[in-house]
């Protein structure tokens, strides 16, 4: 079955904004991709700075998805990781030298990142790091929440 915004929205019960194309199939991207203030990076690309603890607790990603991050704006929109049950697991027990990683997921089928405003994007089987975005503020670093 073709995966579309409409079908992901049905699967997760999450609404997407109606001006987005709901019936087109979602591109599956073999490499780095960004969704607003999040980026999905194949683990091998940054294996030197991101490590998954050997005793990490992995959780299965359920059909309704896992909320990764929610925007700080009013009613803040969530970025959600969605996969067919039993195909994807994820962990937040991650060591990142840049301290930007939210977690790592490992998927044996295509997994999707869904956002009400940004739409959706697909990740082929593999292991990926999800990182947040930062800004430089004075002498500090500030995490972006769009």
């Amino acid at each position, binding site marked *: 079955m073709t995966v579309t915004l409409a079908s992901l929205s049905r699967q997760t019960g999450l609404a997407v904004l109606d*001006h987005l194309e709901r019936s087109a199939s979602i*591109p599956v991207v073999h490499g780095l991709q*960004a969704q*607003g203030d999040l*980026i999905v990076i194949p683990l091998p690309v*940054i294996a030197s700075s991101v490590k998954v603890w050997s005793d990490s607790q992995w959780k299965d990603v359920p059909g309704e998805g896992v909320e990764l991050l*929610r925007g700080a704006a009013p009613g803040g929109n969530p970025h959600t990781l969605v996969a067919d049950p039993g195909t994807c697991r994820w962990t937040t027990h991650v060591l990142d030298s840049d301290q*930007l990683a939210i977690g790592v997921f490992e998927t044996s089928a295509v997994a999707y990142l869904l956002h009400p405003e940004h739409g*959706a994007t697909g990740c082929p089987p593999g292991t990926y790091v999800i990182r947040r975005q*930062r800004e430089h503020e004075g002498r500090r670093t500030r995490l972006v929440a769009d």
Partner: protein
Amino acid sequence: MSVLPQREAAEIREEWLGRALSTLPADRPAAEAAISGLYHLIGLPPPRFHWVPSPITALATVPPGIRPRPSETVDDVSAWPLPSRFSSLMRQLCVALDTQAGWGHRSMEQLIHQKVRNPLTRSADGSLRMPLLSAHDSRHRIPSTWYDTQCVSWIAHYDALRRVAGVRFTPEQSRQLDLWAAVARSGSWWWPREGVCVISERPVTMRTEVCGDDGEVRLHGADGPAARYADGWDVHAWHGTWVPSWVITDPSVQRIERESNVEVRRCAIEHIGWASYIDRAGLRLVASAPDPGNPGSELRLYDMRRETRVLLAVNGSVERDGHRRRYGLTVPGFLDDPIAAAGWTYGLSAEQYSLLLRRT
């Protein structure tokens, strides 16, 4: 956990949030009676009440006929003799109520913590505390346990324990909890001394926005004061950050340049919009480059101020009106390549970021 207690807990939270954010005139007789009841519990006769229109008046003026003790400075309200006695009265009550709830209601208690107490604490920090911060002229948290003592969150917590979880408190415990609840319901912040209690009226305007899953709110007024009191004193806030009034009323490039607080600067620029700020401020373009993964869009890097540059980027997805939003990200000043700057925001090198295939 069934849905019903969750819903009841959320309803109780909304009830208390509504009371806390109320802009109705205080119910003076009820507030005075309840505070007098609390004075009685620490062995003191009812005080004279000195009502003031705002927290700033409460802190900047001294009630007639009162000569404050040297220890009673506005900087450290918690160290005044009476606030510390009331705070310890409240803490003893909490210990007693927790004991009364015992272990039998553990899971309910956790639910109430999560759905009532914590969200209300966050809402109070993001809204009600801000006029206090401003009145105390403090950009940081005010280290005042006295204001924690007056926070609705703990009162709502025990109110929910008895109403949702059915915990039974002793008549004395209920009476004292009702006194604290009555003060929170009918008035606003108060500053007690022996013989006289200063108490503030509520604001006449309070503008908030929702900022969390559990109904958390924060102060935000994009075109005027977020909180205003009857004496004309007001407080401006941008998405929960307390800002000087110019950020809201006249966020000019000159003022932004003069402002030393980086958070205030960011709020003012966000209010103007990054693209038009860069334009109006005439920032120098350092370099531009096509945005990998975002066909047709450019990344533009500008000099902003010492040791800071700003990367102007374009959203990967369209807005409802068909436009793509432009947004600015501040980056360290040593970056002179827009791709490296975009990479830095995700902890990546220019080479790594140039592998970006798609941006939505």
